[in-house]
Each structure stands twice: as structure tokens, then as C-alpha cells.
């Protein structure tokens, strides 16, 4: 798989504003939020992933925008564009996720919390919050392909273009419902692993379908 550096840079540049804003917010949130970060009750994080992902994909994945259409008519083939769009999305997500993960997995967050707030839980944060970044990542792994699929689906030459967007809505609703309905912390590990597995299967399916349908995508800017 060859990487076209100029194309990748171009697409990352398209996502730069949203990435910077998101990174600032995410790092600030992870560093300065007092109290423990629990993935299953952190609706703000879920909302952040939803908005961030939506904004990211809107920057690079919407074929009806002039900027994205420009790429399609500019000498790149479909598969190259698809590959680089995903790669750029992954880099943008990584730019936000990696600092958060480092903050949480290292003693850094505990130190900041201890220094700023004298937080009594500072020594507990690293071990208690280990799973938090993984679930953030899982959220991105499901949401980004879902959104890309939604836009690709909309640009298909056959009917039912909105179904991708409806599916994205369904994923968001399901995520919030599960976060609210199920204290998954108390579920047996095999059940949580099942949900994670289902999410990964979902993500894989959307990526493969997206790649295939991307070839038929119509650029109608």
C-alpha cells in the first residue's frame, strides 16, 4: 500500500482546525476533570466523540462539498482516495486520543489532579481508569467508519441514500442507551467482551462496505 504524502497532508490539513480544537478540549478534560473517569457513565465523552467524529468526517468525507469533490476530479483513483481518507481520519483521531491516553495511563493525570485539587483519588486514577482510553478508541472505531459509510451511502446511484445517516443515528442512540441502561462495570467480563467484539465486527463491516461502495460513489458537487 503506497501512501501519497501530498494527498495525506492535504487531507490532514483539511481536518486541522477540528483536530486542534478537539485535542485541546480532550486533553483539558482528561487532565483537569476532578473525579474518576468512568467510560460507562461519561456521557460527555460520548457526546464529544459524536461531535468530533461528525465534524472530522464532514471535513474530508462529504462528496457533495467542493473541496472533497476537487480531489475526486484531480487525478486520484477511488481506492487511493478511500485509503487516504481513512488514514487521515485515523491520524486526526490519534492526535486527539494519544495525548489523552498518555495522560491517563501515565501518572501524569494523577499528578495534575493532586497538584491542582489535592484530589484524594489521585493515586487510584491510573489503575482505575486504565480501560477508559480503550473505550474511547472503541467509540471512534465504530463512529468514524459509520459516518464515512453514511456519506458514501448517500452518494450512491440507487435509492435509500438516507439509510446510512439513519444508521448513524441508531448507533448513537444505541450507545447512549447502553451507557444509560447497563452498568456494564458489573457485567461479567465475557458479556462486555461480546459487546466489544460486536462493535469491532460492526466497524469492520462498515469499513469493507464503505470501501466497496466508495467505488460507485457519485460526486455531485
Amino acid at each position: 500500500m503506497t501512501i501519497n504524502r501530498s494527498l495525506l497532508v492535504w487531507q490532514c490539513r483539511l481536518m486541522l482546525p477540528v483536530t486542534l480544537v478537539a485535542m485541546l478540549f480532550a486533553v483539558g478534560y482528561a487532565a483537569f476533570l476532578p473525579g474518576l473517569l468512568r467510560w460507562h457513565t461519561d456521557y460527555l465523552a460520548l457526546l464529544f466523540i459524536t461531535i468530533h467524529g461528525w465534524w472530522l468526517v464532514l471535513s474530508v468525507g462529504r462528496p457533495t462539498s467542493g473541496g472533497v469533490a476537487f480531489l475526486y476530479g484531480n487525478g486520484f483513483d477511488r481506492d487511493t482516495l478511500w485509503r487516504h481518507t481513512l488514514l487521515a481520519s485515523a491520524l486526526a483521531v490519534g492526535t486527539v486520543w494519544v495525548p489523552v491516553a498518555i495522560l491517563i495511563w501515565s501518572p501524569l493525570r494523577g499528578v495534575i489532579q493532586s497538584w491542582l485539587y489535592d484530589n484524594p483519588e489521585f493515586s487510584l486514577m491510573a489503575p482505575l481508569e486504565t480501560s477508559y482510553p480503550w473505550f474511547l478508541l472503541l467509540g471512534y472505531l465504530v463512529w468514524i467508519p459509520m459516518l464515512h459509510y453514511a456519506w458514501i451511502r448517500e452518494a450512491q446511484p440507487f435509492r435509500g441514500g438516507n439509510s446510512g445517516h439513519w444508521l448513524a443515528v441508531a448507533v448513537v442512540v444505541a450507545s447512549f442507551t447502553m451507557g444509560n441502561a447497563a452498568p456494564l462495570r458489573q457485567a461479567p467480563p465475557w458479556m462486555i467482551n461480546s459487546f466489544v467484539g460486536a462493535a469491532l465486527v460492526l466497524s469492520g463491516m462498515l469499513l469493507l462496505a464503505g470501501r466497496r461502495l466508495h467505488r460507485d460513489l457519485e460526486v455531485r458537487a
Partner: protein
Amino acid sequence: MSTSLTTLLERAAWIGGAVTLAIGAFAIARQLTVRFTGWRPAELSLPISNNLPPPRLPGWFPRFCATRSAEAREPLGQVQVACLLARCVESAVVWLIGLTLVGAGLLNVWWYGVDLDVVPVAQQRHEFVVLAFLAVTITGLALIGVVWRMGLSIVAIGVLLSAYFSLLDQGTISRRPANEADLAACPIEIRMEDGTVGADVWVNGVLLGQTPLTVTLADWMKLPKWLDAPTTGPDGREVLTTRTSRGTRWLTCVVRPDRRWVSASVPEGTYFLWAEIGGEPLVSAHASHANVSFDGVQWMASPILIQGQSPRWLTALDRLLDQARARDYRIESPDEWLAAMHSFGEGGWRQAMRAAESEPLLNDMLVELLQREIGVTAATTQDEAWAIFERLERQATEARDYQSESRIGRSLELLLPHLDPERLARYAAGIVDGLRWVPSARSWGVLRRGEHESVGRALLPVVSHEHESQTDGNARPTFSTGDLTLSHASVDVTHFRRRDQLARLSFLAHAVWRMDELLDRKETDEAGDNVIERLVVSALLRRGAEHADVRQLVMRLGGSLEDQHLQRWFRDWRRRRPGHEFQFGSEFWRMTQGDQSEAARRWRRQHPDEVLSFAESIGFEENQDFYFGLSDADVSTESLAVRFWPKYREHTMSLQGWPPVRKLAAMWRYLFRMEPYSTPEMYVSAWRTSGIELFLASELQLDDSEIATRLSHDKRKAVIAALTAEAQARLNFAQSDEARRRVAELEEQVAKREKMLRHDIALGPDPVAPRNQKEFLETLIAEAQSELKSAQYDISPRRLAELEETLRQIAALERNAFASRTQRALQRFEYFDDKESAFESLADVMTREIPACPELLELLDSPDPKKRLLAARVIRTHPAPHIRPLLEKLLGDADAEVKKIASETQTEWQRLATEEPGKWLRVTDHKKR
């Protein structure tokens, strides 16, 4: 078990699922058939009879079929393939989401979804049937979406899932609305707390059967209604109603349906139980209440546990212990003794251990027996010791109840020094990590131990209350699962369903706690943490750092991790948990006032301003009685209690609607708890501030146990002296010099007499004074006070004479006010009608003291043969080594009756010393439930 709604839903689920799946499968099959075989479906028509017109189908349906057929016949171009792929993917996504949400319903504890640990098998069937067919329906709809309309399929699945979760929340399969028909069938179990089988139980005069027995709530509600317990038992014998008596009485039991589920038509009721074993009513009995609640799955009632013993059992146990005493606690055949102890059941062990608290040699004997029983001395390897631990753990779990003050608890404490701390720590940490319901563990359990009632957490750390040993006065926490009466409003039925596991956790908490204490006495590692603190504390904090239960245990275990966490946790209480100030406040309150753990004490030492600030903010609510402890006796006059005293006094005086005597009682309680740093001047200032004209101690209604444990004898005298001096200062208004002088003399006598104070505040350790004696003394002192007051204005010789007579009577009884426990027992024996009960108390008190108590010696040396006879009777009850020499004196007594009793006693003791240990042999089975 099934209800009409459950059955309906189950049927709807499988019918709907089957139909939907069939439709989806048919649609797919039809498409595939048309595509691959070229079959052209015929025009849709229905068989008609000759005379009826053909049925008219909606116009869109044939068009739809034709369109789909045409599509199916089209060659699959690239676009068509992509279209099909998209619909398949979308269907699969929706299907996955649907199934995931359905699966989430399995976990939904808050919506009372399926809780696989505790749902009965029959109920699980309903759950899984509905869930399985819900999944099938979703699959069918997904298939329909592939063929027909994806959007409609998504909507249909969404509606289905919404309905499912709405129904779940409303209470159907997993959370059904409380069905009062089912309520009637709710079983209420009645059993003996110690597991005794075969005790006869009456409720409101109706014989229900033998323990363990179960009655339905419906039958229970049919029992006759009594407003109050009768004065006779079922056999017509009169019952004793005083709580402290060893007599029999009707036991109060309240059955309370949970009002969140049950309408007012099912009343709350107070019932009266009577229990007998082999025709003998139980003594010192108590029954727990029954709370009836609904957990979303089934109705259940907490069991009614009856505590109590049969008199013969008590007598037999006493005899067994006397046999030990007569042998100087040296046992030749430990196996026989073990068998004998076991024959009395767990209750017997508890009773013996309670007695051993004041008999070190008996304690040693019991320890030796327990060591032999569990085999700890024979265990040479860690694996063997661990095997013993596991055996004890199993016993606790099977008993479904655990108390640290039990045979198993004591055995555990004997075992712990032989156990590898690290192994225990890892084991405990593993269990803590594996707990799935610590966060929701909030219910309280009520521990009943004799007459003493306490409330504690029914789960981790399962600390019931601080039990003070009667010998050394050191507080020692006890662990108990209690009887889980669910007697508080915040019932979390999850624990009730899991109560079988609570015993094990209590056992483990006890083990961890004690091991930590053992290790703390030894050298610790470089960081200052022992292995318990390193592993278990971190596990506890991982699982439930946010929960008061866990914090409480963690505080007691200590360690650097605990220190880091907790020292900060409580530091700024105002910032903690917005919206949860009350819960946090309660915990904070407990820690500031009552918690004697090292962590709490250290915290109080380091953050006194926080504590005082908190006390001022939380405690001083209008018309609230602020029970504020601030027990930090280790910091001398700089204690928080001392510093807070002026504010507390000011607050108490500002309370509206309180009579002066109540205010004074509250202030004095505070000072009692401040001991030994409260001064007589403080007591006087409290009295002075209260505005009470004269010191009417009978109205103070102070709890004698507080007084008993807090004031030393010398302090009592100093307080009284200060009080009477103050009182005297106000009373000196005699009219004439002579009268004034006489009044002054009388006042001086009153002042000298400790009997100026009402005996209610009698500052002796005995818990409760006899009521009739109280009333008599009250009357005398009231008369004296009244007379002295009026003597300020009118002193007549007659009055003075009456005063002097009153004072003489008071003087005669004055020793009762500040008597020692023994003295009070003597007085009670002298004045009470129930001589048998009074004698039991007297004998118990007199013989426990080692060496022999002065009052007994006094009786022995008394010239009055009646007193010597009393001494002889007392001695006879307790053949302990320190008592036996006293008998020698009586064997040569001049009084024939005394000598006879002494001789009989000697014979009896010789027999006790030689006979085999007496087992409790009854027809009634003592096996565990």
C-alpha cells in the same frame, strides 16, 4: 410461577418472532427463487366461489410484487450488486445493534433486568424465551429490510426495542408490577437464630408450628389482631414484661410491607410471638421484624429470627461451665468437652465466650478447645493452615450468618497467626476484585445481641458496631451479617437476594482486619505498609473508593494508600459530592464523632478546624438534637470536644421547645462523652445555664450506661459536691438565725449526701435501676428539696423534724445512687419482689470479680447469719477457683443453715469436678437449618 402478563408476553414474543422470521425468510426465498430459476410468480389471486366477486387487493401490493419480481429477474449489474450489498450491510448493522441492545437488557440491574445470579430458574425461562424471540424478530425484520425497505425495517426494530425496554422499565417480565395476588403467597420464614429445630411458635395466640416454619403472608394476615401482648402466655402462666428479666415474654414482631409496591390495603402489623422449646418458654428472647418487599422478580420477606434460650438449656450450659470451673478449667478429655460444647450449638459457644470475657481461665480453656477442634496446632505447613481457613470459610457460608463473636470467628482469630498474610491478602483482594455488586451495597442490617440493638452495614465492611469489652474497656469492632431485617427505608433487595454470600464476606472482612492488626504490631516493610494494606486496601479502593462502606473498612486497615486517599477525601467536606451532602455529611459525621480507627483519630488531630467547622454547620439545625461525639480522648485538654463545648452549650440552650431538664441532660451527655477532660465546673455551669432552679435529677432521663462508662467514682463525687455547693448557695434564705442555722445544717447534710441526686443518674455501671426503687427515692428527695425550699420562708419545728426524717431515709438509700454494680445488685435484691431474678444478677455480679469482690467478703464476714447465708448461696453458684476458697470459711460456720449449704455446695462441687462433661441431650434436633 407465571402471571397472565408474563404468559401473554411470552406468547406474543414467540408468535411475533416466528411470524416475522417466517415473513423475512419467505421474502428472501422468493427473491432467490425468481433470480436463479426464472420462475415468474403468477398473478395473485385467491380461490373464490362461483357466486362471490373476487376479493380486491390494495392496488399497491400487486405493483410492489411485480416490481420486486422484475428486480429479481434483472441481471445483477454492478450497481445492483452494490445496492444489495448496502442493504445487507445495513440490515446486519441494525441486527447487530438490536441484538446488542437486547443483550444489554440482560445486564440491566437498574431496570431490574435479568440478574442471572439470583433469578429463579423458572423465571429465567421467561426471560430467555422473551429475549430469544426478540432476537429472532429482529433477525426477521433485518431480512425483510434486505428485501423490502431498509428504512421501515430500522423503524420496526426501533419500535420493538423501545417497547421492550419500556415494558422492562414498567415491569413486566423482569420487573413486573407488584401483583398483590402473588403477595399473598409471599413466604415468611420463622426460625431460631441459632438454628434450633423444633421450637414451637405461637403468633398472636395461634400455634403456627415448629421451627423452621414458613407461613404465607396471606395466612399471616388472617391471624387475630392484638393491640398489646397479654400478661399470660399460651399456657396461662404469667409473663414478665421487663426487658432485662430472664423471664418469658411475648416477642414483638412487626411485619412491614414495602409501601413502594404495596397499597395501603395490605396493612402493616405488629404481632406477638411466643416460642417454646420442649414446653419451656424461651428466656431473654427477642424476635426480628419481617419486611416484605418486591425486587422486581418476586416477593420476599426477611426471615423472622428468634433469639432466646430455653431455661433448661441455660441451666445445662451453666452446669457444663461449672464443671469446668470445678476442675480449675483443666480438661483431661478435650474431645469429650468439645462434643459437649457442640451439643449446645453455636449459641452455646457464644454464651460460653461471653462468660469467658470475665473469666480468663475459662477463655483459655475455650481457646484450647477451639485450637484442638480446628487443628491449628497440628498444622505445620501453610497449605494445612489454609485448608483450615477454607474449612472455616465454608462453615460460615453454610451457616448463612457470621458473627465475629462466634465459634467460627474465634477460631479464625486463633488461626490467623499461623496463616500466610500474603496468601490471605491475595485471596481477599481477588474476591474483592470479583465482586459485582459492591457499588449497590447500601442496605443496613440490624444486629441484635441480647438487649443491645445496633445497626451496621450488611455488606462490606460489615462492621456492626463498636462493642466494648467489659473487662478492659477497649473498643473492639465486631463483624456480623445481622439478621438482615431490612428495617430501613432504603431497602436494596439485591443484598437480600445475595444474603448467602454476605456471611462469607463478613468472615473475610474479619480475617483481613485481624491480620492487619497482627501485622501492624510487627515490623512492616520499607514503605510502612503491610501486605494487607498493599493488596487488600488497593483492591477495596479500586472496587468502591466512592462508597462509605469501603472507606470505613479501608480506614481501619490503614496504610499509605489509605492515608493518601482518605486524608484528602474528608479534608474539604464542603467540596465533596455536590448534591450528596447529606450522605457525605453522615459519613463525615460518623468519622468525626465516633470512629476510633487510627485513620480517623489521625485525621481529627490533623484537621481540627474542619471537624469543628463541620460540627457547627451540620449539627446546628433548628430544634435538632445534635448528638456530637468528638471522642478524641487521646489529645487531652486540647481535644475537640473540649474546644467545642462552649458552642455546644450555647446551641443546646438555644433550642426551642425543650424543657430545661432536657437541655441539661443533653449537655451532661456531652460532658460525659468528654470524659475524662470535663471538669466539675463544666457540669455545674451546664446546670446553671440550664436555668433549673433545683437539681431535679429524676427528670434528667439520662442513659445510665453512658454515665456508667464515662465517669469515674471520684469524678462523680466531685461533680456532686460542686452541684450541691451551688445548690446550697441558692438555698440559704432561712428566716431566723436559728432556723437559718438549722436549715444550713440540713442543707449541709443534704450536700454531704450523694443521695441529693436522683438515683436515675446513679453513676454506677449497672444499666437500669429498678423502677420502684427509683420512684421511692425520687419521692424522698423531692420531699427533701421541697421542704428545704419552703424552709427558706417558714421554718417550723415540725417541718424541720420532717426534713430530718426524710434525710435519714435518703441517707439510708444513698449508697444506691452511687453504688458499685455489686452494691446496686445487693440493693436490688433487698428491695425487689422478684428475688429469684435479683439473686441471679447479684450472684453473677459478685462472682465475676477476680479476686473476690469486697461486698462478698463483707457478706462472708458479716455477723448477721442471713447475710452469711446469702453469701453461701452466692458462692454456690460459681465454683470458680477464686471463689472456692471462700467456701472454706462457711464450712465451719456457726449457723447451721449456712453450714449446711456450704457442705452441700462442697459436695456438689466435688461431683462437678469428677463427672463427665454434660451434653445437651434433647429430643429436639440441634442440627443446622
